[in-house]
């Protein structure tokens, strides 16, 4: 959910995760269906010669663009303006929402159709516009489902992946009047097609996100499988495209690199169904682009973390993450969720998201799968250091770590502590050993106590002469 509308109650990832896992069967399904996407991605990336080289290139192109972002932004603005596109700049979410609102209000817009945009989610555009009387309809099927449920998306690419078809059946029965109990996906999607076609035809304005913006030509590229972005944009008189400033790439030829990676990484498709290139508005229509900072330049100045601005929002790190697959997207309390969310959110609001860098086993699968080679797991490690430095872990945990540090810097202390731990394992009653304090022991046995430590064995067996 967007930051603005929520109080800064810290997200308790482990508690939310435990509740998702308690759903049992659904967790199993969630894990396996996302793993299948990972497998499809493996297969389809394997059919590309030089896949790893392609990742290197994508990473370098993004790093290059970020290193000269001011120049590329100016070049993009010039080219787009020359094309008859109107360019707007917004320093933060509030400014972005205000710009969109003003554009709509002046034109007497009432009905807005939207295609998927993580940026507008981040800025909280929907509630902002709804509160001001606009009828805002998300048109991506998954986005529409979560919108009707009043929830944030749980996955970058598959926003409703946490919802089972039976729940969607109930939802559509209530909201679209489909017959009760009809849960066939083909039928449900067909009902939504009917409902949304009328809304597309009646819309006064269309809002889209942006996958890539080309500095040299002033063009925008928007990718969908459903065709919803195009239907919205081509039927409404006004198209407003909202993009973070990090979406720029230098030239059209660079699209070839990113598009070869994007869909393969996201869904295991060689290319998404529609890859639309917007350069000029259709005759008599308007095209507006809102360039949004909202913390991106601040992030750019963080050497340890700026690489996350390379992200192309494919969701591969979510699909591969063994934690995400079992904890569900909502456990992160942030959009986007998953590993990429866990390194972006603390940069926006550490107070609220300090738990997210710890919601990882640091297995590194995210970094290996990332098409633009963001060092996600290394950033998670570094965010942990920041979280602790800024006082976001409990005093008890901090004290515990200081104790371990104090013990392990001196061999005598270490040996004594080891002996104590082994004695505890031997003599403490089970009730005490597996008391409430012992999170490990809730579902796992502790190791068994050996007769002596290796150090003791070595002293006795190898150093006795």
């Amino acid at each position, binding site marked *: 959910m967007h930051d603005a509308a929520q109080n800064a109650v810290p997200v308790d990832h482990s508690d939310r995760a435990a509740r998702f896992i308690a759903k049992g069967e659904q967790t199993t399904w969630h894990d396996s269906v996302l793993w299948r996407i990972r497998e499809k991605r493996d297969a389809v990336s394997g059919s590309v010669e030089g896949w790893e080289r392609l990742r290197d290139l994508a990473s370098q192109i993004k790093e290059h663009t970020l290193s000269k972002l*001011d120049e590329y932004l100016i070049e993009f603005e010039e080219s787009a303006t020359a094309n008859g596109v109107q360019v707007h700049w917004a320093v933060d979410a*509030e400014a972005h929402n205000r710009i969109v609102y003003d554009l709509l209000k002046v034109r007497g817009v009432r009905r807005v159709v939207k295609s998927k945009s993580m940026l507008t989610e981040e800025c909280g555009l929907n509630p902002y516009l709804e509160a001001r009387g606009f009828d805002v309809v998300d048109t991506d099927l998954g986005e529409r489902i979560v919108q009707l449920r009043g929830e944030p998306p749980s996955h970058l690419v598959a926003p409703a992946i946490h919802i089972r078809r039976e729940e969607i059946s109930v939802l559509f029965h209530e909201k679209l009047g489909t017959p009760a109990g009809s849960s066939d996906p083909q039928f449900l*999607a067909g009902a939504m097609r009917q409902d949304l076609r009328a809304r597309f035809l009646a819309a006064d304005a269309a809002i889209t996100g942006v996958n890539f913006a080309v500095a040299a030509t002033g063009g925008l590229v928007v990718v969908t499988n459903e065709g919803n972005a195009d239907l919205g944009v081509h039927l409404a008189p006004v198209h407003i495209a909202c993009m973070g400033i990090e979406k720029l790439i230098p030239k059209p030829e660079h699209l*070839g690199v990113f598009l070869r990676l994007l869909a393969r990484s996201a869904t295991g498709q060689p290319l*998404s169904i529609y890859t639309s290139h917007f350069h000029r508005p*259709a005759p008599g229509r308007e095209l507006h682009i809102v360039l949004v*900072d909202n913390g991106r330049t601040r992030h750019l100045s963080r050497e340890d973390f700026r690489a996350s601005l390379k992200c192309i929002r494919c969701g591969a790190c979510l699909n591969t993450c063994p934690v995400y697959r079992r904890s569900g997207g909502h456990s992160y309390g942030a959009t986007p969720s998953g590993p990429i969310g866990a390194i972006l959110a603390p940069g926006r609001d550490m107070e609220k998201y300090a738990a997210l860098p710890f919601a990882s086993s640091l297995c590194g699968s995210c970094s290996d799968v990332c098409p633009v080679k963001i060092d996600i797991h290394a950033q998670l490690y570094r965010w942990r250091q920041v979280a602790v430095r800024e006082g976001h872990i409990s005093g008890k945990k901090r004290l515990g770590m200081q104790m371990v540090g104090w013990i392990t810097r001196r061999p005598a202390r270490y040996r004594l502590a080891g002996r104590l731990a082994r004695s505890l394992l031997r003599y403490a009653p089970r009730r005490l050993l597996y008391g409430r304090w012992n999170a490990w022991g809730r579902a796992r046995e502790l190791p068994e106590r050996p007769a002596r430590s290796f150090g003791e064995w070595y002293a006795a067996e190898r150093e006795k002469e």
Partner: protein
Amino acid sequence: MKQENRHNTGGGAGNGTQNGSHAREAILEAVRRARLPAVPLPAIAGVRDACTGDPVSRFMVSAKVAAAAVQIVETGSVETAVRERFPEGASIATTSAAWSFDRMDARTDAHTMAQLDVLVCPGELGVAENGAVWLGESGMGPRAAPFLTQHLVLVLDRSAIVSDMHAAYDRLDVAREGYGVFVAGPSKTADIEQTLVIGAHGPRSLTVLLTQAARFKSVTI
């Protein structure tokens, strides 16, 4: 008490709403303040599709994977091929003067387009690695037409197929027209339990007709 949030004061384009050129300058200035080390722009090398196979057959395989139907037809028999694929009585229109269906142009009303069963458009370029066809604005009539029609047929000369996306962007001038799109299958969604549904919002089917000159001309000496 919290320590000062060191990582949140390192720059950024400031807070609060700033308008117009103020916002522009604030953002550009914040980017410059970040002082990123220079990174060279790499040449796109070592990733070109080295597959030496016939691009047409690769295209056909890719398109079928994306749930598109592909058929090779002689240049002169596009109309016949289209009529054979759809039931009699289906409303068929085209954006090109090359074929004898109802003509649709940029002035056609959206509600009319929404009633259409089949739209036949000329594709400009095909991509073997993913079965995508580039459709430029001039080939689609109103921009909404290829998305509103129930079924889409793209006609592509088989010599206009390139191996991969790099070759496609080498060949295309994407900014020549106001709008252009790669179409790589019928509209689809998997948003309900990852179950594939063809025909999400746009066309329920995509047919690609690959045209070639008649092969067996009668030869007289």
